[in-house]
């Protein structure tokens, strides 16, 4: 949408030059269940540069949420093991003590969730909850904390913050609660904000406000954003790079524009083509046959194979995340020979052109 400078610049620079802020290598998470140990994610590799906005996309159960939580080591009780490294500014979270993690959470990395009401405590004022983060991590006085909270509430677009600071969560609307959550997450000036479906529970007009706020804050305060979502439109409007996950693995990593125009993985292409946005009105929607394999019965080799129209002999081999050139990576050995349709596939071109001319 052109609000703000186009994305490409920052991404490329980050890839060639500066050290990434976050570097995830070979991350895998295992859980204990009644049926034994389940591998929820595996071989997750990606980097996030300082100030970069990266979308993690995929359908339910693909492991995107657990990947976000595992970076902060916020893992559920049936957690059975973590493989790989989570390097943040030189520190490996995989081997940090609980005490070290507590010092990092909320201060250097913050996280917001889909449902702000369940993240806010109903018996404390929103001002108290925002200032709490500050008081835990710094030794500011009460007055200073309050002043900073007011400033932060103003920063996230809450009108008359002097009145709102002493409100309780139930007195605020859904959009305002998410603004409060964003204020609380940003009050210590973190280098990375992990946002897990932050606008999924909001109406489309409020969603537009919150996405604009996230983009604006990331640009002005150079906070990197890891946006976890199932909505490719949200990623396109907010992020510069898009990491697609399927069945617990990263299957494609590219700039948003590259992934939308010329996806390299058949799953990314299939997802794009199945969106009603991009299909001719009243026509049939192309769909991906079958369903995601169950975590207990993951096939060997390519995990998308059974649903892939391009599957052939050779796909039963283990698929590596291959370098596709220009900083792109894809987990499909056939990527170079497949010429896959993206968002601008001919049938959708007139509709897309219309959007562009508006």
């Amino acid at each position, binding site marked *: 949408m052109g*609000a703000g400078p*186009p994305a490409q610049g920052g991404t490329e620079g980050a890839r060639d030059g500066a050290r990434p802020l976050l570097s995830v290598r070979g991350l895998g998470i295992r859980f204990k269940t009644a049926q034994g140990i389940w591998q929820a994610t595996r071989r997750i590799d990606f980097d996030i540069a300082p100030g970069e906005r990266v979308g993690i996309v995929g*359908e339910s159960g693909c492991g995107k949420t657990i990947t976000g939580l595992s970076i902060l080591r916020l893992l559920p009780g049936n957690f059975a093991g973590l493989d790989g490294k989570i390097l943040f500014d030189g520190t490996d979270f995989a081997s940090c003590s609980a005490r070290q993690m507590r010092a990092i959470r909320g201060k250097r990395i913050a996280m917001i969730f889909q449902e702000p009401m369940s993240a806010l405590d109903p018996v404390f004022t929103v001002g108290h909850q925002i200032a709490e983060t500050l008081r835990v991590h710094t030794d500011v006085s009460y007055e200073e904390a309050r002043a900073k909270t007011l400033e932060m509430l103003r920063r996230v677009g809450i009108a008359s913050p002097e009145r709102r600071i002493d409100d309780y969560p139930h007195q605020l609307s859904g959009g305002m609660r998410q603004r409060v959550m964003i204020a609380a997450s940003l009050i210590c000036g973190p280098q990375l904000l992990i946002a897990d479906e932050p606008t999924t529970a909001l*109406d489309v007009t409020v969603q*537009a*406000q919150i996405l604009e706020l996230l983009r604006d804050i990331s640009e002005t305060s150079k906070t990197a954003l890891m946006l976890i979502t199932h909505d490719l439109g949200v990623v396109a*409007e907010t992020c510069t790079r898009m990491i697609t996950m399927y069945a617990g693995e990263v299957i494609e990593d590219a700039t948003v524009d590259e992934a939308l125009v010329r996806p390299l993985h058949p799953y990314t292409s299939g997802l794009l083509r*199945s969106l009603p946005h991009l299909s001719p009105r009243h026509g049939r929607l192309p769909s991906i046959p079958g369903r995601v394999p169950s975590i207990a019965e993951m096939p060997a080799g390519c995990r998308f194979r059974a649903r892939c129209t391009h599957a052939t002999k050779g796909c039963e081999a283990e698929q590596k995340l291959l370098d596709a050139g220009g900083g792109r990576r894809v987990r499909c050995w056939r990527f170079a020979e497949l010429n896959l349709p993206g968002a601008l596939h001919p049938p959708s071109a007139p509709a897309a052109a219309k959007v*562009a001319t508006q």
Partner: protein
Amino acid sequence: MTAAAAEPHREPIVSVRDLQVRFQTSDRRATVKAVDGVNFDVRRGETFGIIGESGSGKTTIGRALVFLLNPSAGAILHDGIDPLALSRRAFQNHRRDYQIIFQDPNAALNPRMTILASVLEPLELARVGNSAERERQAREALERVGLPQEFGERYPHQLSGGQKQRVVIARALTLKPKLIVCDEVVAALDMSIRGDVLNLFADLQRDLGLTYVFITHDLAVVSHISERVAVMYLGQFVELGPTEEVAERPLHPYTIALLSAEPRPLPSSMRQDSRIVLQGEVPSPIDPPSGCRFRTRCPHAQPLCTDRVPEWRELKPDHWVACHFADRPNFSPNAQPETTP
């Protein structure tokens, strides 16, 4: 697109006149006007879309259309008759023709009943034929929605979300309805499944001549599937017209803002240069703004908008709008005075 679109003057399958639905708040001190004066017809064989944000009243309209809620005022006619004037028995027979499907198939299916038993239930309640005949019809309905025979013996937890929604559709089909109200029927489904289910709805419409009222917050879905679409805001329609017209030449500032707010999965070079970000949120339906209800968030609001309720008028053929200024040239999406750069 369909027969209905070709001859718009046939008797509508549903006529809604000055519909109002009001609820008491739980402390009984205030009244929520969930639907406040809505007029429209649904034409036979068409898909009529209703879009709106949460609290706009779209679900309340859907429930009222099949008489799960009774109108507080106004009338809903099915095929020209008022179902509320029918005898109890006649009403029960009548409502088989008008079905409704909801968002969450988990809430619609009993976890302790097999799929076949769930699909059989409406046939049993309606005392259709003997048990062999009922089972034949139920299995036929399952086949029609693309579920293999053996699914009849399974339980809901053994099915995926998309498959469960197919079962719910099969169950609604057993009584051979004329119209189905579809309330956010694909909202809970994953992206790759959504297309399949939307395709199924289109196939069933073609094969069975069904009419749909498709209620959703998702603009992409509604504009894909509907012939006509109504845009709802705070209990009222603000715009109604052919989908292509509403999507490409919207007349109401709210529709324009809604279309502009929709995140589109397009590369940066093809997205809009400017977007209208509405300020604030939807006011309370307990105490809606005077005059035009959208005026508190409208970038074009004038004093007149506070004083007078805009008339519901047919500005272009078949394209209705409730806005004092909808015919002013500066209202086109190309000329927005207040946009973000």
